[in-house]
Every structure is written in C-alpha cells, then in structure tokens.
C-alpha cells in the first residue's frame, strides 16, 4: 500500500492514478477484513473501489486525463506532511496494544452493547444493532449528510432548463 501511495503521488497520468486508487481501496478492504471489520470492508470495497472509481473516471472524461506540471516544487507541504506523520506515529506509541481488552475504549459502553444487544434488540449482528438502534441519532445524521451531498451535487451540476420552459431532454 505504501508503494501504491508513492506511485499515486508520482504518477502524472490521472487515469493510472484512478486505477491505482481503486487497487489501494481493495487492499484497504482486505486489511479491514483481516481486522474483523467486515461491514467496513464491504463499504470500502463498494464505495472506495467501485462507485468512486467510476465517478472519478466520469470526471476525467469531462476534464482530461493529464495532470498539469506544478509550477514550484512543493517542499514546504512535504515538510509539513512529514512532521504530521512523525507526530501521528509518536502518538500511536501511547495507544494501548492492539486488541487489548483492558483498553479504555472497551470499558465504557462496549460491554453493555455486547452483552445486552441480542436480548434488547433481537438482532444478532451487534454492528447493526449499535448503528440503527443505540446510535440511531448518529445514523440519522449520516443519512442526512448523504442526502445533503446529493442535493449539493444536484444544485451545482444541474443543467438549467431552457428559457422557453422546455425541459432539457
């Protein structure tokens, strides 16, 4: 995946970048399966590798597939990015070990979800129970966000009707 990221950064042909991005998404989905997050992996594979690749190809069809050469060498952004990477890696050193049951995140509401979800909601998949029931407000918010994104795209890209009132097709 690191090789792919470097390849995406260096590649000037945007078509290749889109294809590499799709491959990256599929690798990410595999990693998520390995982490037992199958729900997220399905989303990553279908959205990241599937639909957004097609959307990016559609955008390339509209605006051409060759990236313009940058005017200046972007050393400052590179330096900032490296500093942030260093800070994030330093931050991970303070995290509890991977899948440590004593980690703080597993002490708060997780035991209740895992123990009570089946009895309270009758839904064996805890992810679905948490998503749709315990965190129903959050999911409603997410749905509204998706809705807003759709409305925004419609508002930005809609081709206006003709002045004489005829529909556009």
């Amino acid at each position, binding site marked *: 995946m690191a090789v792919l990221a470097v390849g995406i950064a260096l590649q000037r042909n945007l078509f290749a970048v889109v294809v590499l991005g799709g491959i990256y998404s599929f690798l990410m989905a595999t990693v998520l399966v390995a982490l037992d997050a199958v729900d997220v992996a399905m989303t990553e594979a279908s959205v990241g590798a*599937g639909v957004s690749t097609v959307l990016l190809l559609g955008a390339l069809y509209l605006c051409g597939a060759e990236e313009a050469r940058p005017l200046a060498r972007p050393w400052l952004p590179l330096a900032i990015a490296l500093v942030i990477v260093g800070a994030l890696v330093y931050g991970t050193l303070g995290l509890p070990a991977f899948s440590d049951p004593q980690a703080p995140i597993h002490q708060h509401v997780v035991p209740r979800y895992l123990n009570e979800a089946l009895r309270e909601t009758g839904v064996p*998949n805890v992810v679905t129970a948490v998503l749709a029931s315990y965190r129903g407000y959050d999911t409603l918010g997410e*749905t509204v966000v998706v809705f807003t994104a759709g409305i925004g795209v419609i508002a930005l*890209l809609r081709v206006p009707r003709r002045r004489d009132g005829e529909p*556009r097709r």
Partner: protein
Amino acid sequence: MTRLLVLRIVAKILIPFMLMFALYVQFHGDFGPGGGFQAGVIGAAAIVFYALIFGLPAARRMVPEPVVETMVALGVFLYAGVGLLGVALGGNYLDYFVLAADPVAGQHRGIFWVEAGVAITVSGVMLKIFYMFAGRRRDLEEGR
C-alpha cells in the same frame, strides 16, 4: 457494438446477482455483515455497471431521474418518519420499543425501516451523482 458482445452477456448474467446480493445484504444485515448503506451502494453499483455497458440513456430509461431524485428524499423521510412514529406512539424520538407490542419486535421493526431508509437514500444519491457526472457533457450540449 458487436465487439462488446462478451461484456454485454456477462453484464446481463451478473446484474441480477448483484441486485440480489444487494437485497441479501439489506435483509440479512441483522444477522451477517451488511446493512442499509452497503446494500444501497451495491444496488447503485449494479445500475452503474448497467449504464457503463449499455450506455447512460438505457440506464436512465430503466431507472428514470425523477425516480432517483424521489429516492434521495424518500429515504431521509422514511428514517425521520420512523422517529416521529415513535413519538406518536408515546415514546421518544427514534424510540423503537413502542413500535410493536413486544419491545424486541418493535426494535426489529424500527431497525428494519431505518435501514430501508438508509439504503434508499444512499442508492439514490449514488445514482444521482453518477448520472450528473456521466451525463454532464451530453446535457450541456443538448440543454442550450
């Protein structure tokens, strides 16, 4: 068009299974991985696949734009409606326990309709964005 013969046949074989898989992910989300969001995206991806092989006009004939735009709003409406139904039946907003006589059955029913709302909105938005991007050049040429 004849050189696309293999693609067209493969698409015709695959698309029913993709739609079926979307429904499976939707209705089996209670038991296995998946749910409204994934099902909506997979369903939209099947239509996008159809549009890629058979052309955008064919897809727009099969799933017309007004239907897609209605789906975008209908899903949110359904989700919020389930919440309001809970209020109307004497519970809190998005309270599923009051939706049926048995609280667990009420949870089941609430989750089902909420997930359906998510799936409808997500697939509507995905399709709408795809239609917008893919049809933009054509629309610009025909529109003015």
